[in-house]
């Protein structure tokens, strides 16, 4: 009986709780500090005149230009209009990709024949950099909005379809059997067990797809567009308006960061069981 009274069990949880807390705090602080150091270095090299503003304008100039762009605009449109053009394209591409890639992924994961048909098609085009088939899309669909949305759609489709198929294939067989022994039909299995089980993987696929899609979009706008963040950066570069280029790059990075954070938050909200021992 006396062995139950040893203090071993009470002292154990303490180091468990302290260590990760201290580490997560300090990691975040290191990151913030890094950002500040980089900004300070940027300011220092430009303020001292070491680098000409043509190559790297000072932070203050970029900020000023940002204000100007947001209010009066550049190349006939404001920063917001360029931003809106880019966001609308990725939104359409993402929307269509989710609507089609999730059912296709479920079909690949759950049906042998569907896998046989669709797997080689996706695996064939997935490794091709989207910009490599952009010229073909332009030949087929012209240089309008359709070709850009189609390009992003294709770039996002493959990661979501593949992640969904993986999620479907790794569904816990015990959960499927449990649902079947409670009388679930095939459609009910998909709706109540397979789809929620695959949701963490689907969201991971969306995260990867959005990353690929966003970089593809900006690159496509560099090549063939008359609006959008990529176009704004490219046309500014042609006239050596470096502050607009830097600003454009920062906005592009910020949007990518915001999308990533948003999806992580969505993951925490929608799949709180993911990563929990259950």
């Amino acid at each position, binding site marked *: 009986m006396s062995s139950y009274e040893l203090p071993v069990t009470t002292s154990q949880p303490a180091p468990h709780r302290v260590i990760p807390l201290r580490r997560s705090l300090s990691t975040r602080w290191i990151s913030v500090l890094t950002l500040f150091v980089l900004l300070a270095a940027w300011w220092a090299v430009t303020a001292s005149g070491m680098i000409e503003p043509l190559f790297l304008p000072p932070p203050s100039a970029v900020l000023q230009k940002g204000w100007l762009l947001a209010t009066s605009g550049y190349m006939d449109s404001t920063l917001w209009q360029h931003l809106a053009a880019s966001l609308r394209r990725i939104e359409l591409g993402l929307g269509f990709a989710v609507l089609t890639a999730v059912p296709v992924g479920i079909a690949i994961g759950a049906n042998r024949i569907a896998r046989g048909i669709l797997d080689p098609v996706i695996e064939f085009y997935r490794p091709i950099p989207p910009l490599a088939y952009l010229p073909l899309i332009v030949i087929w669909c012209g240089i309008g909005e359709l070709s850009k949305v189609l390009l992003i759609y294709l770039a996002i489709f493959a990661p979501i379809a593949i992640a969904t198929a993986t999620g479907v294939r790794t569904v816990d067989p015990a*959960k499927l*059997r449990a*649902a*079947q*022994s*409670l009388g679930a*039909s095939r459609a009910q299995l998909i709706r*109540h067990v397979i789809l929620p089980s695959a949701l963490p993987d689907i969201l991971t696929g969306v995260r990867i797809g959005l990353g690929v899609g966003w970089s593809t979009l900006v690159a496509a706008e560099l090549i063939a567009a008359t609006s959008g963040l990529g176009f704004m950066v490219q046309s500014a570069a042609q006239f050596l308006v470096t502050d607009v280029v830097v600003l454009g790059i920062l906005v592009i990075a910020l949007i990518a960061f915001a999308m990533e954070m948003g999806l992580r938050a969505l993951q925490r909200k929608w*799949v709180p*069981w993911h990563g929990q021992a259950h």
Partner: protein
Amino acid sequence: MALLQLERISAQYPGAPTPVLADISLELGPRQLLVALGPSGSGKTSLLNLIAGFVEPSAGRITLDGAVVKGPSAERGVVFQDDALLPWQDVLANVGFGLELAGVAKAQREVRAREMLALVDLAGFDNRRIWQLSGGQKQRVGLARALAADPRVLLMDEPFGALDAFTREQMQELLLQVWRRTAKPVFLITHDIEEAVFLATDLILLAPNPGHIVERLHLDFGQRYAAGESARAIKSDPRFIETREHVLGKVFSQRQVSV
């Protein structure tokens, strides 16, 4: 008259050289708690999967109330070793899941689910998340979920195998209480000899290569518990120990033959 009937069942997995089960016949009637006991490889999980309809026999017939069993159905509720609950739903929704699949209205199935939770001593756990439960609590939710769908028979696949010894004893007692109150016929498989002897009204002992029945016993320890005797008193009763040792001896003599 038996409710569930297995007539000369054999089972063989495709590609396997020997069958996993050979010539199994057994019956499960109302108010019976049939326990299949056997070492690993004796085919007891296969036997449960056959009755549940997850796999098909290569020979023989399984009937429930005279109708041949084909595929899984809500008539044969299953409690799994690993709870197999749905973590994206709370406890109440998990228990009502079978009724949801059957199209029962939400208010109605919640009433039923609460009744079942009370039956397994989990009243008030409605909105807990699955990952917040202990192993024993998860198994109770699994039991409540199977019962909520009101199956004709309850199949239990080593339901307490993953639990610690203390929790396992509690769960055995809970199962006997639930079994007595609901009067559902139960088919349970286990490799725990004491558990088998304590719970069973009828015990079959399986031996491997291929799985076959080597012993059938009719026991009353579970009924004595249900009648009010304490679990410890029963398990330390010389007759209980004698039965347990008899079964243990059978298992070992079989093992020597098969090795």
